[in-house]
Each structure stands twice: as structure tokens, then as C-alpha cells.
């Protein structure tokens, strides 16, 4: 009893006070990229789509190497019993008008489409971001770049594609040139606008007051803020370019008849749509799955890259 009283009395004495104690931050350390991935992996649906996408991408890269498919190699052209087969155990996606496996054709096409869209997106983004970042800071450059942009933005894409196709001939190289020679200007313009929005924020003025050079400002102050919008842009551009490629190949302006391509397949198989609808719908379906999952994963990654979602 007495002991208890003593304890109680002890409680009513002053505690020690350390001023610095309250400066500590109790919360666990924050890391940007860790938070990005934590946010991204939190959503089960996103993870499922990401796994599916990864699987498709790997499959599209590996399967054609094994099959060695080429649209001009047609060993079964003289075996009518191997043509127009419906999907079955031996022929997963069936066979087409020349007796080739649709499965092989689709994946070979998907591989080319994916490679082209990734390469073009890469080129467009790298040039676009570099030019756009400087463009956003330089008033001098803005004056003439804006004119370049006005011209480029007003050239009909199809017209440009047609001209380049006739001049350079069909093929992978000319298709990549077609899809990058003007597109980077559009990216640069987008980046320029974004840079201008955050360029005059106070923390950039603070950097200027500390004598920070423009190039350092771009890499340290501006681009880190743009990760999320750039990712959103990429998430839109990759599927867009895939459908461009399909569209151009469909129009006969793309890869030409010697290369496999989803557009090529779709264009070829359209004529058999009545009798053998699977020929048309299977490549369209694969195209849709690739585009949509690319878009979803890209978009979710962009969301996760926005620090406002990190909590």
C-alpha cells in the first residue's frame, strides 16, 4: 500500500524534457521507387494484368524464333486438306488459306508489332524529352520550335506515311522512320508545356537563387516531377503505335508482304471473314489483349509513380 502510494506520488513529479526528442521523425523512411512499386503491387487486378502482359511479351519474342514463321514460306500450299482448318488440338488457332499455322502467323506478327512500337516509343520519348525540356526553358528556341510544331502538327499522318513508303520502300526501317520522324515533335511539345507549368514554381526559383544551372534544374528539379505524366504518355503511345502499325500494314503501307505483322494478317484474313471468321477474329483478339493490357499496366504504373498515391 505504502509502496503504491510512493509510486503514485512519483508520477506527479516532472518528467525529463529533451527538446531534440520531438524533432525525430517516427515514420519509416520514404523511398520514391519503393513506394511506386508498393503502390503498384497493392492492386491484385493490376498484378494479374502485368503477369499476363509479361507472359504475352515473352511468348511473342520466343515463339516466332522456334516456329521460324515467314509469310512467304508456304510449304503446305499444295495440300488443300491442311487449309482453313478450324482451331483444334493439333492446330491451336487453326490454319489459313495457304495452310500455315495461324498460331505461328499471329505470334510472329505480334512480335514485329511489339518491337516496332517499343523501338519507336523509345526513340520518340528520348528525343522528345531532351528537346522538350530545353525547349521549355529557352525563350529563343521557343520562337522557332513553335513554328516547327505548327507545321508538323498539321501534316496529315497518312499522307506522310504514303510518301515515305513510296520513297523509302516498305519495310521495318521505313516504318520506324515514318512513326518517329514527326512524332517526337509532338512529344517535345507536350514536355515543353509540362516544363513550363512547373518551371516557375517557387522551388525552382529557390534553386536559381542558389546558382543552379539550367541543365541541373532539368535533371534534378523538373524531370523527376514528370515521371508520372511521362509514364502516362508512354502508356498511351505504345498501344497507339501498335494500332498505327496495324493500320498502315492493313493499308499496304507498312511492313510489306515479306514480313509478318498483325496488320498484314488482319488485312489478308479479312477476305475470309464470312466463311472462316476465326481467321479474322483471332489476330484482332490478340491485338486487343496486347493493347489493352499494355495500356492498363502503363496507366497503373503512372498512377503509382504519382507520389500523391503513396501513403
Amino acid at each position, binding site marked *: 500500500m505504502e509502496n503504491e502510494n510512493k509510486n503514485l506520488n512519483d508520477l506527479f513529479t516532472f518528467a525529463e524534457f529533451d527538446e531534440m526528442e520531438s*524533432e525525430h*521523425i517516427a515514420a519509416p*523512411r520514404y523511398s520514391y521507387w519503393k513506394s511506386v512499386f508498393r503502390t503498384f503491387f497493392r492492386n491484385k487486378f493490376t498484378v494479374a494484368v502485368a503477369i499476363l502482359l509479361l507472359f504475352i511479351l515473352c511468348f511473342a519474342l520466343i515463339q516466332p524464333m522456334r516456329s521460324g514463321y515467314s509469310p512467304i514460306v508456304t510449304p503446305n500450299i499444295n495440300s488443300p486438306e491442311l487449309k482453313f482448318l478450324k482451331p483444334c488440338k493439333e492446330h491451336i488457332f487453326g490454319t489459313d488459306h495457304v495452310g500455315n499455322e495461324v498460331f505461328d502467323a499471329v505470334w510472329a506478327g505480334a512480335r514485329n508489332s511489339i518491337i516496332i512500337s517499343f523501338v519507336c516509343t523509345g526513340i520518340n520519348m528520348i528525343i522528345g524529352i531532351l528537346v522538350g525540356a530545353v525547349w521549355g526553358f529557352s525563350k529563343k528556341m521557343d520562337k522557332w520550335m513553335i513554328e516547327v510544331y505548327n507545321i508538323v502538327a498539321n501534316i496529315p499522318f497518312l499522307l506522310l506515311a504514303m510518301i515515305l513508303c513510296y520513297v523509302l520502300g516498305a519495310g521495318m526501317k521505313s516504318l520506324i522512320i515514318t512513326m518517329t520522324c514527326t512524332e517526337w515533335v509532338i512529344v517535345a511539345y507536350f514536355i515543353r508545356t509540362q516544363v513550363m507549368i512547373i518551371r516557375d514554381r*517557387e*522551388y525552382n526559383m529557390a534553386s536559381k*537563387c*542558389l546558382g543552379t544551372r539550367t541543365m*541541373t534544374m532539368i535533371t534534378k*528539379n523538373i524531370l523527376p516531377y514528370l515521371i508520372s505524366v511521362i509514364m502516362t504518355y508512354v502508356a498511351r503511345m505504345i498501344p497507339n503505335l501498335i494500332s498505327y502499325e496495324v493500320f498502315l500494314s492493313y493499308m499496304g503501307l507498312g511492313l510489306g508482304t515479306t514480313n509478318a505483322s498483325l496488320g498484314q494478317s488482319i488485312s489478308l484474313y479479312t477476305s475470309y471473314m464470312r466463311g472462316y471468321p476465326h481467321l479474322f477474329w483471332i489476330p484482332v483478339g490478340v491485338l486487343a489483349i496486347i493493347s489493352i493490357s499494355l495500356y492498363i499496366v502503363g496507366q497503373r504504373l503512372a498512377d503509382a509513380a504519382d507520389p500523391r498515391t503513396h501513403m
Partner: protein
Amino acid sequence: MSNNSIDREVILSIKHVDISFDQGHKKKFVAVKDANFDIYKGETFALVGESGSGKTTLGRAILRINPLSAGEIEFEGKRISGKISREEDRNVVRNIQMIFQDPAASLNERATIEYCVSEGLYNFHLYKDEEDRIAKVDKALQDVGLLPEHKSRYPHEFSGGQRQRVGIARAMIMDPKFIVADEPISALDVSIRAQVLNLMNKLKAEKNLTYLFIAHDLSVVRFIADRIAVIHLGEIVEIAESETLFKYPLHPYTISLLSAVPMPDPVVERDRHAIVYDPSKLDQSGEKRTMKEIRPGHFVYATTKEFAGYEEKIAQMEKELKEN
């Protein structure tokens, strides 16, 4: 007391400065009109005015962010406004630093505290090696009451007061001679304002700094400033030593600002009334106003007629105070 200002060394001199902004269609908005004053080495000079008074514009002009449309700014006797060489520009950055109003907006959210504080060191390569740089950052953080362990944190993990102290550390690490503090406490909670003010006073004494302290409120300024300039709509209306300004406020706008300071006493507040500034009661003769020295070191912006009125008033106040 006011005489010692004469033999004090001038560190920064604002000479008949006008600052205007284009508003398109040949219209110009004049943010600062004919600002003209000296700041002495080692003092805290306060510039007090409300939003739109041009106080921030003038502060930023010193840091070469806003260009002048007339006049000159001199630092240690050398012109720092207008076109100057790159070397001189770097020199201005080294010696004049700024503390910003909103600590949430003025720190790079995507950089660690270590980078934020080191930024100036990197730009001027003010360190021997990595070890030296880290040591300098740790020292700067400790000087403002933060901990070295904060280096790896990001600005958003800090409270407002802590962030403002990071902003101060980043300016101090440059070892500047002159600091423009643009409303450094107005974005902070009342309870932590005091800490930042104390810190600024402590650093000033330790490092022999000179402050231009921009504020919108006279209550803060009385505590921190040695001399005060009151600015209204781009015009400086009164300059005086802090004690003088509070004892003998002359310009009606100064009086209006003074009367608007809320006092923490319900009984006193009941009888206090804010005085609304009414410029139409000033001399309307159209005579151009100039800065006139009414007592040594005490300037007021007035026409001849107004000046006579102020003279009468200050004499009256002096007499009354002597009688008490």
C-alpha cells in the same frame, strides 16, 4: 541613438528603383515606385506592407529575379542590377540568399534533404571532398535545430516549421552576407513561428548577417527589426528605426497597420478600433510626394503641406511623452 546610423557601413543600397510588369497592349503595371533606401551592415531591415504592395517584388529584384525598369541596386558599393558579368552574378548568388515564404512550395519534393541543403555547395563546389560536404550539411542542419539523421528524408516527411528550417539551412550553408527573408513565418502555424524567429535572430548574431525581412504584419516586425520601411501600393510611405516608428507613427497608413494588430487581451481589444486608411484625406493638391526626413533617420512620404502637418503632430507627441 539615431545618429549612429550615419557612421554605419551601408551594405545594400536601393537607389530610386522602379519595377514594372508588362500587361500586354502597352499597358504597364508599376509594382514599385521610386524605392530609395540603404540597408546597413548587421541590421534587420523590415519591409512591411500588404499583398500587392510590391514588397516581394522588391525583395526579388535584389536577387536579380525581377528586372528593374529604373534605378539601381548596389551591394557593397557595386552595382548588381541590370547587365552584369557572369562572375559578378555568381558573386551575388554567393553573398545574397533568400528564405522563402512557403516552405512546402520552395523545397524540391523529389530530392532528399541532403540534396536540398547541398545544392548551393554543389553549384559552387564549396567542399573539399564528399566527407567535407556531409560534414557541412550535418553542421547546417544542427545549426537550425535539426538532426543529421534527417538527411535521407524527403521534404514532405517534415512539419511546416521543420521544412522552413531546412530552407534556412540551405541558405546559410552558402555563408551569405545578406539574406532576403520573404515572409518566412506567415505560412507557419502560430505556435512554431516563434521558433523560426528566434532561430533567425540567433543565426544573425552568430554569423554577422544582415536581413531584409519582408512582412505583412507589424507585430512580428517589432520583435525582430532594427529599422522598418512601410510600403503601400508600391510606394514607401515611412521609414524609421523600429522604436521610433512604433512611438511616433506619422503616415496614416502606418497608423492603420498599427491599429490592425490584434492584441491578446479581450479587455483592451473591446476599446480598440481598427483605423481604415483613407487616402482621400491626404493632401489632394497634386503636388508630387517625396521622402522627407522629419527627424534624423525618420522619413515620411509627403507633400509640403502634409509634411507640415506631420511636423506639428510629432512635436505634439514628443511634448506629451516628455510630460508623462
